[in-house]
């Protein structure tokens, strides 16, 4: 059983505070959803936790199983068990998905330990089948010329291969049509287990119909203003973000 604790976190971009004191604990096996309008700091939260160099954590802490990840480089955080599913995954021409994932898995092995290529490909192909990704994609460059749906499926594929303790899913539903959304959601649901905690960031309730969260948090202006179970998402959908602004945000 692992836990990811975000404690009174403050994050700035340059001089501008974006996340203003956010506290949240995710345990293995739980799916949390953070909802909120654009510009409220949801993506900033996810990227700051993953260690993006453009974001400055001005105070607070992020603990993975009691140990602060803040002194760690982004790659160390990933190896420690954090995974960020990007809202806009980079297109990287010339680097094949197979080589990229190999490098990522190799980085998790001990010094002098060699990756078992046969086992690797077997596992890769089974995860690709699960996500309905054509096996030919292994030799294609990362996200290069991929459709929106293909990019998001590729993110889930990486998550499936790297088996993180906690996944931060940043607007995984954006840019997906309903079929692509279903495939991505099925993929995530297949990965749900007692070993994985998920923090899903979304603007819309739509995704939560497919990946049903245990906890829902409403974020506004850099803070969580209300938490509840999955019914909160429906309430928010019905009442809209004006309800948050007028009734939930302290004057």
């Amino acid at each position: 059983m692992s836990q990811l604790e975000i404690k009174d976190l403050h994050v700035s971009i340059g001089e501008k505070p974006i996340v203003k004191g956010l506290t949240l604990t995710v345990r293995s096996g739980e799916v949390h959803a953070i909802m909120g309008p654009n510009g409220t700091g949801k993506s900033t939260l996810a990227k700051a936790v993953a260690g993006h160099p453009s974001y400055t954590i001005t105070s607070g802490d992020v603990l993975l199983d009691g140990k602060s990840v803040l002194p760690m480089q982004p790659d160390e955080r990933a190896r420690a068990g954090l995974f960020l599913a990007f809202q806009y995954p980079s297109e990287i021409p010339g680097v094949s998905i197979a080589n990229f994932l190999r490098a990522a898995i190799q980085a998790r092995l001990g010094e002098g330990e060699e990756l078992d290529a046969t086992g690797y490909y077997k596992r890769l192909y089974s995860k690709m089948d699960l996500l309905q990704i054509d096996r030919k994609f292994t030799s294609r460059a990362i996200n290069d010329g991929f459709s929106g749906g293909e990019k998001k499926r590729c993110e889930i594929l990486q998550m499936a291969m790297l088996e993180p303790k906690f996944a931060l899913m940043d607007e995984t539903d954006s840019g997906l049509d309903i079929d692509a959304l279903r495939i991505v959601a099925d993929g995530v649901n297949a990965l749900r287990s007692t070993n994985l905690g998920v923090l899903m960031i979304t603007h819309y309730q739509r995704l939560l119909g497919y990946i049903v969260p245990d906890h829902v948090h409403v974020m506004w202006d850099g803070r969580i203003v209300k938490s509840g179970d999955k019914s909160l998402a429906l309430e928010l959908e019905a009442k809209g973000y004006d309800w948050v602004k007028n009734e939930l945000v302290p004057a």
Partner: protein
Amino acid sequence: MSAVASVPAGVLDVALQSAETAAFRAQDWFAVLRQQGWHAFQSLPMPTRDNEKWRFSDARTLSLDGYAPAPAPTPAQAADLIARSRLISDAAGLIVHVDGHCVLKPTLSAELVAQGVVFESLEDAVRARPALLQEHLLKHPVLLGGDKFAALHRAWLRAGYVLHVPKGVEVKQPFVSVTWTLTDGVAVFPHALIIAGERATADIHDFHLSAKADQRALAISAVDIHAGTGSQVRRLAVQAWGSATQSFQIDNTCGGRDAVISSVNAAVGSRRARLENTVRIDGPGADVSLYGISVASGEQEFDQRTLQVHAAGHAKSDLLFKNALLGKARTIFSGLIKVAPDAQRTDAYQTNRNLLLSPDAEADSLPGLEIEANDVKCSHGATTGQIDPAELFYLRARGIPLAVAQELLAQGFLEEVLAKVGHEEAAAAVREMLRLKFHQA
């Protein structure tokens, strides 16, 4: 610097050159050609930095002193290097030179011999095919500034090969030439004469390698490619001389009507390496692709000069040179597209992209157009940049350490050109050479 002072002292000298030339006395025309080269070499000045064709290159450190031809290797040395030359398993033929001496002559299949394909050492061809050679050997003008080095190459011409694929003959397997330097301070002058007849197809892999990683040598190589009407010629040239080598490569290609020509020049070796690559399109419908790829590290200087001459209309040429720079390395790319007045409907492009992986590396780019026709599509572009931080973060967010991520991205940058090699085993060999550069740096 005066012309006389630049003649190297005591090594590549008159007596030795004359003695070598005398060995070709029975082939009078060849002895004359060498003598002309020697005289031209003596009369030409060493290039200086104020020469526009040598702009940005470190001309002050150009020196021809202290190099000499070397004797033939021992049989054991030759056998070792021949074994190390078997890089391409499906070669149509393999020729190997060590220190300018041919140590392995190609054996062609009976079928290729019956079709009239010639792939043999230059020395053999000088004796056996004077007419073919007199028509094609060193017939291209040297336009990009390396006249003095080209003259020295001509004066010492002996090593190299001739490939002739006659009219209508299509050879799918590559002809492979591996040229080694072995002796410290050796001067080598390898030549490749490639003639593709009408509708002929030829694929050539040229490897320039050194027995030792830190080999000191002077290498002045030249290539003449004559691509006939409707022919298809693809060439990969790999410059991987040892790290203390001065390399000069003078490549000339001539494309006839509807010829399809593709070349990839890969560079990893030498302390300084200059490539002068001239392509002249003489017939309409020709389609020429020119690619360059390099990883420069330490204090290496890669100096790339290219010229795309469109003498005929309705033809296409496309150039892409990519350099990745580490350490204090420097690259210079200077390219010119020249379109003659009647070469209407020309499509000509030129792109140079440099990836700086170190704050001390420097890439200079001088793209140019000289267009005298009025109905053409021509463009040139150059970019020099660093690794995209978003891409870097993406890889690191998957647990890949910084250094590995940088290397993956640099290799990804170069992969676009490697994909053009068109031969998986050769591309893999080049990919491995490029990869090693990152680990030596």
